[in-house]
């Protein structure tokens, strides 16, 4: 299959890329990993007349720590995140997302920034990174600005990016200890997009109570969503140990009044998560099915996140 004809540019600097975008505007597209753009061009869903390949811009490569933030260059591949010990140690929720995105070949080329710019409702990076303090750095004709991820994605496949702007990096705050996060995804076959996914990031206080919690939903709405009322319910509360959370409330056999109370709270949180989901029916499932999945995946993600907050190394459950 051949895409429509286009003119190809391979700029060496961000400024050159911005000049090209300024000149060609709406007719130009940035080419990063190409793992979403090429399939669309081959099917002629997209037919840009100019392609600005940013893979040769060295300043966009790499993954580095700057103070208490992790800075992900626009050319950082899914595989770079999966291979990073910094990510594995401090941001396991990102490690989960990197390993659950697509397959090995796609992970070797696809970029985190490209995933956010593409804003697929079922994309894994938008959902996982929304649970963290994530900022998107955008360069354009008027200079550089940063915007929180929650504002960057405005609708399905739609971001704040103007035609002559590009993402140069994505930065993520490294949460204070003790914290734990997890991202779980339900897919119909290996390497496919999510039927539904849930991210949970928890911080504990000195009493091991929940200081803060973020719960995000992927493929459960036009954009990734936060389950705000479930978060509010859990914030400040005592929490069950992770391993006892994964099953249903009745098999967690609470052995104290505290556990009984937090088990009930968790059942209520699960209900609020289901309510927060706003899925659409498609070949991957009906609205009711996806809503149900949201609750199940929330429990799984919550259990792993809590275990990790208590310093245990656990893998997210593969379906």
């Amino acid at each position: 299959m051949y895409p429509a004809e286009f003119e190809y540019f391979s700029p060496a600097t961000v400024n050159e890329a911005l000049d090209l975008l300024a000149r060609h505007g709406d007719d130009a597209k940035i080419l990063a990993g190409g793992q979403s753009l090429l399939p669309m061009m081959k099917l002629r869903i997209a037919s840009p007349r100019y392609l600005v390949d940013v893979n040769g811009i060295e300043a966009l490569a790499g993954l580095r720590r700057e103070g208490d933030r992790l800075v992900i260059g626009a050319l950082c591949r899914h595989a770079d995140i999966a291979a990073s010990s910094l990510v594995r140690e401090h941001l396991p929720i990102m490690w989960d997302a990197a390993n659950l995105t697509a397959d090995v070949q796609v992970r070797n080329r696809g970029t985190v920034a490209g995933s956010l710019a593409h804003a697929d409702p079922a994309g894994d990076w938008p959902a996982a990174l929304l649970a963290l303090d994530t900022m998107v750095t955008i360069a354009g004709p008027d200079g550089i600005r940063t915007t929180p991820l929650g504002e960057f994605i405005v609708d399905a496949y739609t971001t704040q990016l103007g035609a002559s702007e590009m993402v140069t990096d994505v930065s993520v705050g490294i949460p204070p200890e003790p914290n734990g996060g997890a991202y779980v995804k339900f897919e119909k076959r290996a390497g496919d997009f999510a039927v539904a996914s849930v991210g949970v990031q928890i911080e504990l206080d000195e009493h091991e109570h929940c200081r803060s919690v973020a719960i995000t939903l992927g493929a459960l709405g036009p954009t990734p969503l936060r389950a705000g009322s479930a978060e509010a319910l859990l914030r400040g509360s005592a929490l069950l140990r992770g391993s006892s959370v994964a099953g249903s409330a009745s098999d967690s056999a609470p052995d104290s009044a505290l556990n009984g109370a937090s088990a009930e709270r968790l059942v209520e949180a699960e209900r609020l998560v289901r309510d927060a989901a706003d899925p659409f029916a498609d070949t991957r499932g009906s609205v009711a099915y996806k809503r149900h999945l949201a609750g199940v995946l929330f429990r799984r993600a919550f259990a792993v996140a809590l275990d990790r907050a208590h310093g245990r190394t656990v893998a997210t459950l593969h379906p």
Partner: protein
Amino acid sequence: MPQISITVNGKVRKARVEPRLLLVHFLREQLLLTGTHVGCDTSQCGACTVLIDGRSAKSCTIFAVQASGSKVTTIEGLATDGALHPLQEGFWEEHGLQCGYCTPGMILSAVNLLKDTPRPTERQIREGIAGNFCRCTGYQHIVNAIQHAAKKGLPKRAKRARRTPKAAASAATGGR
């Protein structure tokens, strides 16, 4: 048309190509390296997998111009002087193929896997080849083939094979 220069299986190949030419078509139609297959042509099946600078990629999902300046390895580049690569030998010994359509891509994904994970678990093997569809084998013999190669060890130069597949095939069909 842009001028490209790609080192394919150790040989520098220069050409003028249309930007929209996909790497897989450059390999198959211009270099006549037809071992790299097109299965789905929609980035799903992995039949077109090659290594670009040592990392596996779907060659139907990258333009040839993007690979300019890179080293590309295809299935034709794995055997050395008629000696099968340990993974090719593994597929041979363990019956890792039936129709063979998925095999080149499967083997290059396995090369990518064993480079990072020389002693993979069965689970790691299955995850490593998740981007490659096989419609014949049911995967078990492919997993066995990769385990066979992992036991032999990848980094060492492949031992000289007793016979190449061609010689073996010709022996099997009575030299016809």
